[in-house]
């Protein structure tokens, strides 16, 4: 009897619990949006009248009659310059101690995208599809939320435009400098298609965009002081508008290229502003025929040269910085923080195109990636 009453009362309790209503946040007919602040210039004495590129993104802002923003449907605050490498998952969430956000949604606690056709969209925020007014305001680099800033500081609107987002499409939005001389800034909305392509998990894919500011590579070197740092290698001086990319795969920290992957012509990149997705180039993950097909380790080197220059007859010596934009160099390996005894001329170090990680019974096991390389004024991802 005692047991029965206990059972009954717990059943009653359970019933009560079942009545609690959980309100799930839901966005009907969402589009998936990821936003980057690519204004990767630095302020110095030479350009001190420019504003620090620290932004607040406002989607569907509420503006009063004085032009003052008093609210917005979606706010992406503390939008700092992007990190050089932006992985598909919000990697900086757990390790950050500041409010500054290298991308939107990034650290923001908002609804993010699902796994779509095998692609984890947890770095893409869900936003209602349809037409939106979108504003980017310059904000001071402090911890005060945008709407609590004094009115004077809420009025510096950099970009005010309208975008249309389609339901369940994946977008990246880029804010960048369009003209290095006039300092004109702009936004570019790119509708991604990687989730619609028949990609294989045994191939590595890479594509290239050159969103550099107009007039950057032509500009005098003295004007590029403070732009990027030495880690950006030759790319910090910019590259020409029409460049060829040659790819080599090597054993880590050696000049021994894998058979068949020595200065292979890969792509041509032209500087352009368009929302068009660049062509994805691919090569097999296990390009190293000696590997055990479970894990493989290689460096990917991209020599970027002006048309007419062959990588076999590279005219530039070590530490040469006077190439007038005809030469740039990317090295991709490990987590991008590599040091080695290999003398890579003016290289920009980026994470590898293969991911080696403990998986199941294999340690390590190699996974392929899809890399979008964005080359702009000073830096790359």
């Amino acid at each position, binding site marked *: 009897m005692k047991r029965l009453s206990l059972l009954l009362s717990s059943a009653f309790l359970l019933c009560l619990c079942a009545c609690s209503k959980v309100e799930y946040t839901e966005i009907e007919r969402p589009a998936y949006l990821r936003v980057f602040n690519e204004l990767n210039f*630095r*302020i*110095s*004495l*030479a350009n*001190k*009248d420019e*504003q*620090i590129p620290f932004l607040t993104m406002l989607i569907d802002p509420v503006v009063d009659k004085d032009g003052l923003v008093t609210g917005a449907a979606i706010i992406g605050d503390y939008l700092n310059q992007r990190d050089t490498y932006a992985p598909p998952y919000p990697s900086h969430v757990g390790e950050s101690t*500041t409010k500054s956000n290298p991308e939107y949604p990034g650290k923001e606690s908002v609804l993010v995208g699902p796994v779509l056709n095998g692609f984890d969209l947890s770095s893409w925020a869900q936003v209602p599809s349809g037409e939106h007014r979108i504003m980017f305001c310059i904000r*001071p*680099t*402090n911890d005060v939320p945008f709407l609590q800033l*004094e009115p004077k*500081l809420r009025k510096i609107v950099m970009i005010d435009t309208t975008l249309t987002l389609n339901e369940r499409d994946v977008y990246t939005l880029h804010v960048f400098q369009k003209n290095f001389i006039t300092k004109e800034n702009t936004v570019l909305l790119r509708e991604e298609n990687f989730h619609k392509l028949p990609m294989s998990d045994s191939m590595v894919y890479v594509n290239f965009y050159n969103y550099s500011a107009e007039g950057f590579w032509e500009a005098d070197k*003295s004007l590029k*002081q*403070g732009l990027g740092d030495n880690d950006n290698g030759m790319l910090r001086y910019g590259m020409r508008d029409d460049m060829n990319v040659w790819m080599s795969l090597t054993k880590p920290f050696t000049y021994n290229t894998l058979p068949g992957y020595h200065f292979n012509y890969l792509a041509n990149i032209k500087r352009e502003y368009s929302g068009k997705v660049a062509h994805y180039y691919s090569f097999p993950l296990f390009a190293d025929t000696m590997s055990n097909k479970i894990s493989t380790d290689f460096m990917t080197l991209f020599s970027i040269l002006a048309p007419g220059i062959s990588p076999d007859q590279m005219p530039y010596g070590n530490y040469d910085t006077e190439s007038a934009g005809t030469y740039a160099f990317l090295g991709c390996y490990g987590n991008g923080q590599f040091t080695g005894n290999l003398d890579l001329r003016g290289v920009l170090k980026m994470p590898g195109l293969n991911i080696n990680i403990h998986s199941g019974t294999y340690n390590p096991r190699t996974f392929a990636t899809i890399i979008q390389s964005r080359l702009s004024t000073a830096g790359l991802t």
Partner: protein
Amino acid sequence: MVALISTIFAACKHDNLEVPDASKTFRLAGDFIRNNYDLTMFAAAIDYAGMREELNSAGPYTVFAPNNTAFAQLGITRASDFAGMDKDSLRNMLHYHMLGRRLIKTDVPANNLDSRYASLYEGREPFFTYVAYGSAGPAFPVGDLYINGAFAVKSDVALQNGMLHVIDKVMKYTPGTVQDWLNKRSEYSVFVAALKKFGYWDQLAFEGTCTVYAPDNAALEKGGITAEWVQNVNVNEYLGARLFGIYIIPGRRFFATDFVAAGRLYANGGFAGFIPNDTYKFALKGEKDTYRQLPSTVTITFTRPATPEQPWDQAVRDITGNIAGRIDNLTDNGLVHHLPNFPVLPNEAEKN
């Protein structure tokens, strides 16, 4: 026993604890300044200009109060030194040191050079720079506030009717152009004559901004440039850009403390480039010991560029403007720093 008990009870007696009224403990701006030993000259200026009542009114105000050291840089060491001054222009100067709002240091956008706030002098806006943290990152706070080349030696003093910051330099703002400023001062007459002769004078009346390093007559005379020399010189024999163009940095506005702030912010507090229309270079820097609160200085360097034989730039001469009262003179279209010496000799600018 009774006495003992009564003593114990007596010991238990407490007076009512009076919590001070927060608004009563802060003084009004005028009273605070008058009662501060380091602000006696500022207080004397306020009294002479008849502004005490204004400073004791409701406000809110933010006062940038130059300390006595700042006035001493201008040769003002006694209250009576204000006696001969024009009251209206003194009032304007004092209003330029006041904002019609409460501004604490952290209100100024962090790490931004030249934020502007309207002063009470017809809304004219001084330049504010707040260095919250330097190139080492936010974990290493700095917290320096600079206004028009002055350094806030003490900031965020709460007043009943506002906020007070003590600065180590009187902000020297003169309405008008750089031309007007130089014309009014006879000690720059040779410099002015030379600029006119070499065709650099007109640009000092243009809108926009520039920074002028102005050597006075005594400085130029050390290099053999006198009024007579300017009168007789054949302009075609000299590279005007190098000889006099070096003194004018067009399109730039550099207070002495801008170099200091940029040094903190970007670990690069210098500015260099080619002298416009010349093959030689100039380099600028400014220094200030903010810890010991020493006056700031500005330096201009005349530099010979690298040649194949000597593959590095070589400084020919550098001149430091170290008279604190005579640098950071702001006008509506530029900034003038006084130079006590000359960077370029005439024979270094001769055409071959």
